[in-house]
Structure formats: structure tokens, C-alpha cells
């Protein structure tokens, strides 16, 4: 959160000393929406007063009028913090900062109480953050409510105690106990010192102030530089937890130095041309100008946050072509300011300007020399510009030539602006010639990036040729005798396609010219085969061919009647057996007559019958395990019963 706020603040107050500034764009809606995304309140309020202040200030700077949603809850917490006696210095400080933006209704007594608390804190402070928050709070109260009398009794003593924390290299320590120093702390210290000076009832000793000025100069010795020339401050020793980046540090230093410079008399001698200025940015709405549409060159100058620039002139110092080694075609033209659209406009490009890629160099000249202290223009701004136009295509024609002699067999004129469909035929002894002339609107020769002719066979094998030029004339001669192998000896119909294109050509074309029937000789044994054409990518994932499964031919089954006949035939021996038994005169005389053995005998026979029935069921529907279980049970029963019967029979017969 701090980064976002700091970034915007830094842009306002940053020193941008650069000789060749990069292209900047002023603040736009994308920045605003980014800020809204970054600062999202949870349940209508932010997690801390510090964050609330950052959000409010960012919205204020960017011009987002979204404060109303959070102002109610913020005012409540501000009043609460200011009224409470147990708030710490940091909370009081940020509560007062929020109050500065929101201007909540706060009673004078509360502010008086806060002010006396802060005064006590100033006198009792020992660490830099304490000084910073308490002095800062007092300055805020003084600015916001002039009725409350803010007094700093021992201003000089406070000044000296803050100064005591400084180091010889220009950086500041956070407290006398902690030997760590940081550039960020230096910024805080300058701001606090500036506050002390502004709150002091009487003048502070100038010699002490002079030593602080020296500290500022010493700090600026440690300034670092990016590749594009912009300067920044960064911490030397990096504490991984606290490190917030060069923007954070730089903005703190700038805030401090600005505040200090505002309250001291005399000026601070700082390296560099400008002190603190508002940078002006040159931006172009369109970098592609069309000669056919007679586009005008428009330039707008504004500050980073999009506010209007002071009266100034934009001068086009130089326009040089990228290709012809910097020969400038325009020099020192002043652009007219159009008040309605607030653009600086170049009336008309000179007639000698041709299509192509150019580098335009702009310079901003302020009317009022006083403004030069306030604004910085960033020197010369270079912008790449494309000038596009209509390329004239003259006398396009296609011809079939006989080899060697070069006599024309067929010649056809083409209309490259419209439809063409020529029908040519040639054999391998002839040549194909395509020619035309290209010229720019000013009549000069023009070489586009792409001049390609493509021949595509019926089987989708393509051949691409680049056309060369000499001056305005573009020509290609395809000698089929030499190309027979390249064409894979494929005879047949070839479609001809011509492509002429460039980024500055407004009438780039990709035209089908027609077709040519080529008659090539038969391929020899070892000729290269044409490359396989890419398979339709969708077919890889589409359904595959249906597989017809080959099943084993089913066994030949006998006719039903035969099977049934043999079933009957199988029963015949059984009948024979029974008949034989009757012939033998079997009887059941040995069947036990007395009751108990008789029952056992009956059970024995029933048991055997049950087992056989079980077997039938097993065949029909049961599985082996059930059957085995049942057989086991029946077997035990059967054994017991059988034993009884048979032992009885054995005893009776013996």
C-alpha cells in the first residue's frame, strides 16, 4: 500500500533530471482503476489509519471522488483516536492527516488536548520516529485549526536533539541506542526539522540550520542513477524485513528536503540544474500518419497527472528518416497550438516527405522564464513516427517465355487492384516472368518488406519465391528447367499468388493471380517425393475407423431332433436295467420291518435322493462352494444314518 501512495507522490515531487527522457504518458484511467483495485476497504474501512490516509491521498491526487464511502467510518475512528488518551503518536499523526483530507467535525477541546499531548511528547521524545510523529502532528494541527495555539517552547533544544542523531555521511539514525542508519530516516529527519523551524516562536540559531544544510548536500552525494538518466536514492545496507525499495526512500528524502527548503531562508545548493520541478511530458495520440488521409501531426504537453501545462511552444527540432542514415527532412518547425483541442499541431507535412519510418525530435520551450523553475521539460524527446501512404503499382504483367530465345509466348496484363484470374500453360522448357514497378507517392523507388510469389499445386505442395528489384522495377523469372527437381516433378495445375506488403504501405495486397498448367517430365527412379502434407489436426482426435472383429466361427451344433433322439436312446438302457431287475425277481424282503431301523432305512434312501437332487441343482444354478457345504452336511447325516441301517442289516444277516 505504501508503495502505491509513494509512487504517485514521488511522481509529483520527483527530480527528473535527464537529457534524453523516455516517452512518458500522463496518468490515465488505467492508473485510476489500478489504484481503486489496490485500495479496497474491508467492510467500509481500512486496517489502519496509515493505510486510510494513503488511500485518501491517492484518490485525492488521482481525482477519484470515492472518498465518501469510507469517510463516515474514518471520521468515527479519527474522532475516537484523537479523543482517547491511550493512542500512540503514530495513530495521532495519521488521524490528523486523515482529518486534513476529510475535514471531519472535531471539537476544539479535543484538538487542544491532542496538541498538549503532542507538545509533551516532543519534549520527552528520544527516537526519530517519535520526533517525527509529534512534530508532524503539531504542524498539522497548526495548519488545520489556527484557533488552537501550538507552542514549541524549547524549539532549539528539539532541533539540536534531532540533529544529534545525524551521521557524517548525511544519513540519520533512528535513535541514539540503535547504530543502524538509513536514508529513509534522513528524509523523516528533514521533515521533522522543517516542522520544528515552522513551529518555533523565535529564530533558531542559523549555524545549526547551516549544518543541516550541509547534511542535505552530503546526502545528495549518495544519489544513484539509472541507465536512462533518472536519479534515485536507495538504502546502502538492506534490512530484509524493512526494505521497501528506492521509490520509498527517494520519496521520503524529497518530502523532507522540500519541506526543509520551504522554511529556510536562502537556497540549498544541490547538484543538478533543477531543484524540485513538475515534469512536463510530451505525448502523441497517434504515431502513425497517413499521407492519403492527410493526417496532421498532433502533440500534447501535460504534467504527469494530466493537468494542463503552462503556455509553451513545441518545436519539431528534427525529423530524420530511419533508413537513409539520419538525413533530416524537416528542421526547426514550430507547432501551432490549437486551443479547442489543446494539441500542438503541425499544419502540413512538407511535400518532400515520403512514406517510411522516421524519428521526430521535439523540444518544449516555455514562454515564461519564471516557469522554468517550476517545470522541467526533460530536454529533447524522440518519437518514432510511421508515415504511411499509397504505393503505386505500375504495369504489372505476367508472361511465359520460351527458354534461351526469350521470346514471349503468352503475355497477360494484370490488374493488381482488382480480381485477376489468368490461365497460363507451360512446359519445363519455358519460363514464367512476373514484373511490375512500385513507386511512392513522391515518385521514388520503394522496396517493401515482402514481395513474394507463391505457386501451389493441386496436392497442396507450395513453393515460395522472393522477388528482387532494381530501382523501381520488380521482376522474377522462374526457369522451370532448373526448378523441375524442386517441384518434385509434379505436373498439373499450380495456383499463383502474389504478396506485396510493408508496414508503411496502405494498399498491401495478397492476390490470387490465376493458375498455370505445368507440364513437367516424369520423375526418375531416385527422385525426391513431395513432402507429406500436414494432416488435418482435428482428425487425430476424431473417431478412428470402425474395426470389424473376426470371431471364431461358432461350432456346428447338431440339429435339435437328433439330440433329443439320443436323449431318449440314453434312457433305453435304464429301462432295460429295470426290466432286467423285474425278470430277476428282485424283492424288498430284506427291508427292515421294525420301526427304528425302518425309519433309518427310509432316511438313508431319502438322504441319497437328496444328494442327487442337490447335484441336479448344482448343475442348474448353484455354485461349487454352496454345493460342497450342502454335500458336507448331507454327507454327515447320511453316514450316520447309513451306518445305523447297515450295521443293523449286518447284525441281522450274520
Amino acid at each position, binding site marked *: 500500500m505504501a508503495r502505491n501512495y509513494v509512487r504517485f507522490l514521488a511522481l509529483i515531487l520527483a527530480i527528473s533530471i535527464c537529457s534524453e527522457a523516455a516517452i512518458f504518458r500522463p496518468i490515465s484511467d488505467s492508473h485510476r482503476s489500478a489504484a481503486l483495485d489496490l485500495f479496497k476497504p474491508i467492510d467500509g474501512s481500512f486496517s489502519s489509519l496509515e493505510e486510510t490516509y494513503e488511500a485518501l491521498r491517492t484518490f485525492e491526487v488521482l481525482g477519484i471522488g470515492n472518498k465518501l464511502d469510507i469517510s463516515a467510518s474514518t471520521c468515527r475512528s479519527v474522532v475516537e483516536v484523537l479523543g482517547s488518551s491511550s493512542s500512540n503518536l503514530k495513530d495521532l499523526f495519521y488521524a490528523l492527516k486523515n482529518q486534513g483530507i476529510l475535514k471531519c467535525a472535531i471539537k476544539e477541546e479535543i484538538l487542544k488536548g491532542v496538541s498538549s499531548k503532542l507538545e509533551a511528547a516532543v519534549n520527552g521524545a528520544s527516537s526519530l520516529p517519535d520526533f517525527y510523529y509529534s512534530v508532524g502532528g503539531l504542524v498539522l494541527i497548526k495548519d488545520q485549526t489556527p484557533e488552537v495555539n501550538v507552542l514549541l517552547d524549547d524549539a532549539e533544544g528539539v532541533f539540536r536533539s534531532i540533529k544529534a542523531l545525524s551521521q557524517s555521511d548525511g544519513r540519520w539514525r533512528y535513535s541514539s541506542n540503535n547504530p543502524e542508519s538509513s536514508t529513509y530516516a534522513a528524509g523523516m529527519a528533514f521533515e521533522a526539522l522543517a516542522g520544528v523551524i515552522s513551529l518555533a516562536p523565535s529564530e533558531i540559531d542559523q549555524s545549526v540550520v547551516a549544518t543541516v544544510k550541509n547534511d542535505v548536500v552530503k546526502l545528495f552525494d549518495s544519489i544513484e542513477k539509472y541507465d536512462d538518466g533518472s536519479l534515485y536514492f536507495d538504502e546502502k545496507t538492506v534490512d530484509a524485513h524493512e526494505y521497501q525499495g528506492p521509490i520509498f526512500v527517494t520519496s521520503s528524502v524529497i518530502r523532507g528536503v522540500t519541506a526543509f527548503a520551504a522554511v529556510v531562508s536562502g537556497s540549498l545548493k544541490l547538484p543538478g540544474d533543477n531543484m524540485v520541478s513538475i515534469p512536463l511530458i510530451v505525448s502523441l495520440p497517434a504515431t502513425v500518419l497517413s499521407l492519403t488521409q492527410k493526417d496532421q501531426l498532433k502533440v500534447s504537453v501535460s504534467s504527469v497527472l494530466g493537468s494542463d501545462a503552462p503556455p509553451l511552444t513545441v518545436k519539431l527540432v528534427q525529423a530524420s528518416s530511419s533508413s537513409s542514415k539520419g538525413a533530416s527532412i524537416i528542421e526547426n518547425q514550430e507547432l501551432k497550438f490549437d486551443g479547442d483541442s489543446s494539441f500542438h499541431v503541425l499544419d502540413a507535412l512538407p511535400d518532400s516527405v515520403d512514406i517510411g519510418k522516421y524519428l521526430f525530435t521535439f523540444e518544449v520551450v516555455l514562454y515564461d522564464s519564471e516557469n522554468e523553475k517550476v517545470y522541467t521539460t526533460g530536454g529533447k524527446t524522440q518519437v518514432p513516427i510511421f508515415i504511411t501512404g499509397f504505393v503505386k503499382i505500375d504495369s504489372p504483367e505476367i508472361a511465359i517465355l520460351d527458354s534461351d530465345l526469350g521470346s514471349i509466348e503468352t503475355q497477360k496484363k494484370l490488374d493488381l487492384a482488382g480480381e485477376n484470374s489468368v490461365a497460363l500453360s507451360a512446359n519445363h522448357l519455358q519460363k514464367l516472368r512476373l514484373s511490375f514497378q512500385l513507386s511512392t507517392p513522391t515518385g521514388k523507388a520503394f522496396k517493401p518488406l515482402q514481395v513474394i510469389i507463391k505457386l501451389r499445386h493441386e496436392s497442396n505442395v507450395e513453393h515460395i519465391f522472393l522477388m528482387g528489384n532494381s530501382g523501381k522495377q520488380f521482376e522474377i523469372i522462374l526457369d522451370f528447367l532448373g526448378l523441375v527437381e524442386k517441384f518434385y516433378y509434379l505436373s498439373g495445375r499450380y495456383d499463383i499468388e502474389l504478396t506485396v506488403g510493408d508496414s508503411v504501405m496502405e494498399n498491401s495486397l495478397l492476390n490470387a493471380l490465376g493458375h498455370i498448367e505445368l507440364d513437367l517430365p516424369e520423375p526418375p527412379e531416385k527422385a525426391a517425393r513431395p513432402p507429406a502434407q500436414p494432416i488435418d489436426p482435428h482428425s487425430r482426435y476424431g473417431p478412428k475407423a470402425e474395426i470389424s472383429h473376426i470371431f471364431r466361427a461358432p*461350432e*456346428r*451344433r*447338431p440339429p435339435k431332433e*437328433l*439330440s433329443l433322439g*439320443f436323449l431318449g*436312446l*440314453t434312457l*433305453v*438302457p*435304464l429301462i*432295460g*436295467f429295470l426290466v*432286467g*431287475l423285474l425278470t*430277476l*425277481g*428282485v424283492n424288498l424282503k430284506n427291508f427292515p420291518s421294525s420301526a427304528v431301523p425302518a425309519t433309518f432305512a427310509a432316511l438313508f434312501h431319502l438322504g*441319497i435322493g437328496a*444328494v*442327487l437332487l442337490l*447335484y*441336479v441343482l*448344482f*448343475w442348474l444354478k448353484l455354485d*461349487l462352494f454352496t*454345493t460342497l457345504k450342502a*454335500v458336507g452336511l448331507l*454327507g454327515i447325516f447320511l453316514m450316520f444314518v*447309513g*451306518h445305523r441301517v*447297515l*450295521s443293523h*442289516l*449286518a447284525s441281522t444277516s*450274520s
Partner: protein
Amino acid sequence: MARTTTKDAQALFQSLRSAYASTPTNLKIIDLYVMFAVFTALIQVAYMAIVGSFPFNSFLSGLLSCVGTAVLAVCLRIQVNKENKEFKDLPPERAFADFVLCNLVLHLVIMNFLG
């Protein structure tokens, strides 16, 4: 010579028949049972010869059921025959119980293999 052979065969056949008549009835019953089993087997083989051996497992189980039960019946006959000195001490009821048990086991296996 041929007449003597035929006459000898006839005489042999007659003597066999008369000798067989004196066998006890229970042995005759067992013999009849064996004949029944063998004939059933022969009919199954004839069927297989006609229609082919698919499904082979069914054919085998049917055939072996007949053959198995015939074999068990022959064993029973040996054990029950009073003139057989070897099994003098074995009571015929015991032999019959064995016969029944072995048949039941055989038929369980047969039914499983029948498919």
C-alpha cells in the same frame, strides 16, 4: 473242423449259461447294473461320433460317469462275492456303503465338470 468249432462254441456257451444261472441274485443285479452303465457309455460315444466332440468337457463327464460307476460296481461285486477268499472278513454292507460313498463323490466331480 468248422462243425466241431461251432459245436464247441455252442457247448461252451451252454456251459457258461448254466454256470451263470447258479450265481446268486445280488451278483446278477450288479452285473445288470454294469451292463446298463456300459450301454449308456456306448450310446454317448456313438452320439459323439455323429455330432462331433463339442463341448468336449460334457462328453468326457458323461462318459466317465458311466465308466466310473461301472468300475465301482465291479469292485462291489468282487467284494460281495462269497466265493472270493480275499474279502472273506469284509461284511457286504460295508462294501455297499463304500460303493455308495464313492459314487456320490464321483458324481459330484462329474456334475462340476459337466458345465
